[in-house]
């Protein structure tokens, strides 16, 4: 069978089309996945540069390289780019598209053209957001949360930026609709729900959140535009409006959105850990159901962002309680991953190292989240650098590292070439070290009272801020090494043939790189996703 050899023809060339238009107008899920991958990772790098600039400003007290207005604009753009252009579309758009249809034994997603449209909407939204930085009153300075009343009054170009985010939201909804339909309708023969890889399960749970929560963001952003352009006064108390209602609306979407960010990352980790431990995953069904439980319960905790907003005490108690409930399904996953490792035959290659650091960094982020979720302690650390440290642990240490794991695990499959292991491990070490130096220090600074979103601080915070900034350079050095090594490998590296990782999910049974139609003939799933008994490395 040609399946196990380097395919002479693959989706890169088997349609005979290779020009730019064969990519940007392609309806092949693998090509769209790669489009998403390169665009999201491009925006990630933009965001990283902005983050590094923020850190340089904070390196020493007083003005270092920029004034307050520039700082406000930079952290806003950093946040908007990282959240809306990198981390929300990142995993479903890139790896979801590339891998999920093959994992379930399908030739493509249910609606390939809708899939292409969703990438285009993403690009159009991104262009609008970028335009907003250089037109009208200049880059928005509200923070990525666009809180009223400031966002309805500031002279910066909030309306256009918000409109761009609105468009990107539709892209996200379309991906969700596509994935739910695909997972329901296009599973191959024998691919029962409990043979679905956990990555696919996590995308399924995520897709529902994308469909149900994103419209609320869209409406909220339209209301901000209405407030600015028409002066509706919906959020203005002097005209009978309610500013706290804005925060409700915003977080009704944006807390579930953190599960759009983290659930697929958990799926990646659930797929990688068993492969590199040579053991079936522990508690498959619990992991699958906990994804659904997180998606459902996680939609009801948004008020934990509003403990200091003047919301009623009843609401504070209810939302604080519910927040603690979400910790349960998250912890179920962590314990199941650990149990999978127990007595496994573990090999510490780059994908596994990134996946393992996900567990640790996500746990630190999650546990610090409980300090924020408990109403009493939150009052002390609200809007401090503790929060900044917390969400970078979850989003960057969690989702970001899971994306790096996926890049080392799956990209070789689609390129047929691989990266070099040693530099990848050095890069991982640098990033892991730099990451903790940077963000753990931020958490300490926050505990000591350093507020977020200020370009300056009291002199006593100076030394630790210097430490954090040096951490950001170590992190950046690791990141550069990782990307150079990975892309050099993908384009010019050793061939990656057959199934070197020894994965048991369907994507490892097709040719490397896969052909446009993915499978020769109709695939039939005969075993579970983590049944390694018949797998040859």
């Amino acid at each position, binding site marked *: 069978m040609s399946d196990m050899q380097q395919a002479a023809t693959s989706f890169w060339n088997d349609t005979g089309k290779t020009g730019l238009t064969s990519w940007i107008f392609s309806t092949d899920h693998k090509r769209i996945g790669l489009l998403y991958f390169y665009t999201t990772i491009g925006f990630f790098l933009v965001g990283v540069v902005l983050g590094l600039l923020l850190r340089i400003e904070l390196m020493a007290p007083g003005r270092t390289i920029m004034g307050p207005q520039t700082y406000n604009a930079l952290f806003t753009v950093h946040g908007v780019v990282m959240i809306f252009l990198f981390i929300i579309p990142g995993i479903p758009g890139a790896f979801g598209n590339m891998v999920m249809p093959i994992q379930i034994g399908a030739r493509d997603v249910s609606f390939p053209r809708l899939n292409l449209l969703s990438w285009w909407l993403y690009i159009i939204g991104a262009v609008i957001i970028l335009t907003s930085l250089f037109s009208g009153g200049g880059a928005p300075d509200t923070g990525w949360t666009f809180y009223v009343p400031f966002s309805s009054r500031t002279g910066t170009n909030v309306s256009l930026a918000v409109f761009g985010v609105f468009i990107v939201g539709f892209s996200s909804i379309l991906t969700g609709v596509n994935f739910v339909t695909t997972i329901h309708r296009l599973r191959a023969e024998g691919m029962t729900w409990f043979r679905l890889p956990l990555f696919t399960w996590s995308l399924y749970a995520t897709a529902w959140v994308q469909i149900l929560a994103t419209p609320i963001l869209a409406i909220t952003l339209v209301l901000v535009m209405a407030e600015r352009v028409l002066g509706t006064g919906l959020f203005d108390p002097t005209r009978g409006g309610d500013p706290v209602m804005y925060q409700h609306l915003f977080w009704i979407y944006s807390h579930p959105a953190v599960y759009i960010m983290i659930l697929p990352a958990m799926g990646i980790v659930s797929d990688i850990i068993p492969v590199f431990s040579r053991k079936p995953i522990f508690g498959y069904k619990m992991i699958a159901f906990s994804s659904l439980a997180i998606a459902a319960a996680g*939609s009801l905790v948004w*008020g934990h962002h509003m403990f200091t907003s003047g919301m*009623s005490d*009843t*609401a504070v108690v209810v939302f604080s309680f519910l927040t603690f409930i979400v910790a349960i399904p998250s912890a179920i996953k962590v314990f199941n991953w650990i149990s999978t490792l127990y007595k496994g035959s573990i090999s510490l290659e780059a994908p596994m190292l990134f996946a393992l650091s996900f567990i640790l960094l996500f746990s630190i982020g999650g546990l610090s989240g409980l300090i924020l979720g408990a109403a009493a302690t939150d009052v002390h650390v609200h809007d401090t650098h503790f929060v900044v440290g917390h969400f970078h642990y979850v989003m960057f240490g969690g989702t970001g590292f899971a994306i790096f794991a996926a890049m080392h695990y799956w990209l070789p499959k689609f390129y047929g070439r691989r990266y070099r292991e040693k530099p990848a491990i050095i890069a991982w070490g640098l990033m892991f070290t730099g990451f903790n130096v940077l963000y753990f220090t931020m958490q300490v600074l926050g505990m000591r009272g350093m507020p977020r979103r200020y370009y300056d601080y009291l002199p006593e915070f100076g030394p630790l801020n210097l430490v954090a900034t040096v951490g950001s350079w170590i992190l950046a050095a690791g990141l550069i090494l990782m990307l150079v090594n990975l892309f050099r490998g993908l384009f010019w590296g050793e061939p990656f043939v057959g199934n070197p990782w020894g994965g048991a999910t369907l994507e490892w049974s097709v040719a490397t790189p896969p052909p446009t139609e993915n499978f020769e003939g109709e695939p039939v799933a005969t075993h579970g996703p983590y049944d390694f008994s018949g797998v040859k490395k």
Partner: protein
Amino acid sequence: MDQHQPHIVSYTRLIGIWLALLVLTALTVAITRVELGGYKVVGALAVACAKAGLVIAVFMHMKYEGVLLRWLLFLAFVTLAVFIGFTFFDVLYR
């Protein structure tokens, strides 16, 4: 798309629904004039639900769709209702 035959809704029917929507709109305005306190919102939401229901059932043809689509739509509504409901933990107890 199998059970998709065209449904021609008669003009009298459409106009009837339209009139019902107008009456309900008037009701929304009327509610704001009565002293009901926090229940004003409940009243307004109830009327809004009735209106949306009519539009979705008739104008958007959901009445003639299959069970699956109806359930999916229902799920979306339940979600919305829960979201709105939870904001009352704040609004009603301030």
